[in-house]
């Protein structure tokens, strides 16, 4: 645990900073919207009631659903995360501010009126100070809510501590999970205490403080933008998990080695296939590694059946991406991360099983469990059953991260696998050869817009150095280092590049 913290301290601090940044912006925007709205509604009880209702309804929508709903409108990344958080935080702030402002002893309001004070005096010297404890407690509730919910931002590439929670779940890495969860909890507690303290400070000081923070913040943002503009920044993202992270780190090293004026920004564990593809289309990211099989199955529209010849299927994918989306798909690496069925190596030896055809003969003795997607997709279990005539003793679906362990523990006898999964090595599992070429080939290659490729030929050249490199065994070993041994992806990537003379230092 401590080792993990030391090794990753830089990234953890960056994620913490990003978490605070997202939470703070969302909180400030929510306050700027909700408090003045409550002030306006003081004299409009019906309007106030209406706003309360609407905010309440928004509150009941799960935050994950709000994130999903926003993607078509604002895309992915930090912006939709902030919008969702703001929507979420408005209700507690508004509700508390409004009831604080409207439940002031009417005799005090009458007194203020009777002395002939101005509206401004009444608001700033009477109503707001008297409602302040309620307003502050609303803000406290909202901030704690925001800090907790910000962990979901990682799902749509918003970054923050949620990234560690996601990585922890995806790669079975308890250290990452604990870091993400504990840090966000501590952050919530600290913020809660800090705001409680602020509640005891006078209104005037709070206003001055917030104004100062806004100015500093604005200055920082503008300043960092100005500095950042001098060099070209390329954003490369990867899907969830260790393998894409290793790949994009290789991309970064290769590009930066050849192009000193280019700065590569990595967004690892950025999301699922459709997130990344949308992000690439909208220009939020410039490059991400994609598999030929996924392109054919999920991204392009085609009526032809998918070729099982790797070269052919890559050419098809490349052409269809160009036609349908005007994208450039660079040359693939050597390894294939195909679907396969895995069994215990002990069983393989005992029954002398090498191919799926071998398995067919014994299938009625085997209990199977599959990833739910694999269980349903035509290129998964249903197709497999038809092609090989396999009939298992029992078939059920199982959370993907659990299935290898279940297999190793003799709970099941066969499961679906990816050929580069490090768990195959970890749990002494064997994959069976697809002797009738049923599974489509999954070759990895960098995907980008055609316009980007045209504008950056040197980047394309750097990335092509990986074409035909990395064997399945290499990839499995690197995945093992990252996902099981918990070594840093950037180091594992660099080691490979150095060993194969792809970079110099």
């Amino acid at each position: 645990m401590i080792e993990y913290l030391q090794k990753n301290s830089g990234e953890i601090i960056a994620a913490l900073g990003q978490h605070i940044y997202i939470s703070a912006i969302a909180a400030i925007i929510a306050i700027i919207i909700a408090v003045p709205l409550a002030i306006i509604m003081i004299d409009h009880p019906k309007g106030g009631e209406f706003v309360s209702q609407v905010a309440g309804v928004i509150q009941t929508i799960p935050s994950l659903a709000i994130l999903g709903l926003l993607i078509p409108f604002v895309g992915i990344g930090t912006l939709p995360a902030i919008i969702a958080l703001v929507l979420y935080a408005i209700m507690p702030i508004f509700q508390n501010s409004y009831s604080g402002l409207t439940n002031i002893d009417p005799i005090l309001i009458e007194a203020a009126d009777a002395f002939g004070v101005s509206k401004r005096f009444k608001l700033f010297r009477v109503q707001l100070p008297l409602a302040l404890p309620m307003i502050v407690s609303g803000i406290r509730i909202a901030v704690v809510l925001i800090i907790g919910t910000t962990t979901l931002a990682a799902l749509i590439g918003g970054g923050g501590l949620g990234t560690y929670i996601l990585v922890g779940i995806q790669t079975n890495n308890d250290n990452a999970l604990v870091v993400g969860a504990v840090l966000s909890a501590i952050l919530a507690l600290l913020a809660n205490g800090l705001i409680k303290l602020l509640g005891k400070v006078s209104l005037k000081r709070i206003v001055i403080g917030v104004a100062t923070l806004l100015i500093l913040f604005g200055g920082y943002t503008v300043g960092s933008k100005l500095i950042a503009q001098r060099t070209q920044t390329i954003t490369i993202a990867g899907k969830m998990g260790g393998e894409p992270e290793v790949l994009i780190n290789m991309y970064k090293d290769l590009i930066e080695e050849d192009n000193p004026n280019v700065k590569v920004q990595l967004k690892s564990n950025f999301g699922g296939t459709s997130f990344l593809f949308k992000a690439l289309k909208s220009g939020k990211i410039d490059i991400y590694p994609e598999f030929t099989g996924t392109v054919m199955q999920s991204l392009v529209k085609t009526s032809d059946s998918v070729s099982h010849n790797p070269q052919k299927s890559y050419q098809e994918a490349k052409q269809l991406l160009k036609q349908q989306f005007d994208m450039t798909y660079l040359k693939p690496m050597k390894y294939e991360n195909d679907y396969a069925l895995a069994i215990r190596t002990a069983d393989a030896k005992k029954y002398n099983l090498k191919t799926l055809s071998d398995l067919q003969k014994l299938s009625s003795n085997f209990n199977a469990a599959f990833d739910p997607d694999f269980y349903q997709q035509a290129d998964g279990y249903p197709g497999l059953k038809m092609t090989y005539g396999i009939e298992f003793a029992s078939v059920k679906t199982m959370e993907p991260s659990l299935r290898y362990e279940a297999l190793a523990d003799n709970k099941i006898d066969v499961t679906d696998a990816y050929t580069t999964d490090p768990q195959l090595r970890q749990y002494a599992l064997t994959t069976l050869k697809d002797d009738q070429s049923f599974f489509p080939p999954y070759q990895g290659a960098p995907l980008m817009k055609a316009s980007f490729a045209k504008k950056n030929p040197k980047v394309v050249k750097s990335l092509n150095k990986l074409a035909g490199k990395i064997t399945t065994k290499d990839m499995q070993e690197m995945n093992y280092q990252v996902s099981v041994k918990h070594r840093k992806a950037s180091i594992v990537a660099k080691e490979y590049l150095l060993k194969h003379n792809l970079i110099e230092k």
Partner: protein
Amino acid sequence: MIEFKNVSKEYEQGLALNNLNLNIDEGELFVLVGPSGSGKTTLLKMINGLNTPTTGEIRIADEDIKNSNIRQLRHNIGYVLQAGALFPNMTVEQNVSIQLDLLGWNETRKHDRICELMVRVGLDPETFLSRMPSELSGGEAQRVGIVRALAGQPNVVLMDEPFSALDPISRAQLQELVFELHREIKTTFVFVTHDMQEALKLADRLAVLYQGELQQVGKPQDILSHPANQFVKDFFDNDTSVEIFLQQVIDAGFGVQQTDETAIPMGDDQTIFDWSREIHDRPNQLIVVDQIILQPEDLVNYMATLRVGVIR
């Protein structure tokens, strides 16, 4: 002079004030009295525009207040509310300065005026000006409320049941204070109360209101001696008969502490009317209240100390 001309106020639930005509003279301490729901507070709040009549007009110094700048008007009207109604987020000094700030007084003049008034109401400025309202007793808070109302040397001072929440001792002290302050500064005071004793004690003139109708206007002794109708008569009878306790007679210094076997014991919560019935039946009967002997003459002598209609 404050004039109400044909003033009516109608709410959805009915008529709160019905065609009311009333003049309040310059410099008098005028009391509006009546049971709750009689419309007295509604009437008071029409003077500073917190409430507006449905029909009719209110004139101050011969000007219809509809035509005057309402904030300007309020700057020159002092207002004392129930239980002080001090702003809990401001110090005593900030509370009493509100109208002076609005009137644009400079710091020195403001401070001198506030200190002078604080001393006058019996609060040491050095001790009290920096305190928060939560650190004051009910009586102290209402004294500050009075300072706040008088600070700007207003033309009119309105008081809306200011002492109803106070204990009897503080109430008596503050009634005395208001009485004296009015005598000193000779500004028009309009005072609302449901307490008949308070009304009789303070008023130069008073108006009796009942269910939105003006019942009678006059000096306390006129109203007591010539009640205009049965309601006024009952209201005052009721009020006097229940409220003078034997303890008040003893507090006024009557009676001697001794033992007498013939004295009839009576409780300190019985009234002088119970006592007078006893004397009516047995003219020479002594009574004893908590070991204090009272003679029949004490009743006559006590009654003689009371002003007409004014019961302390």
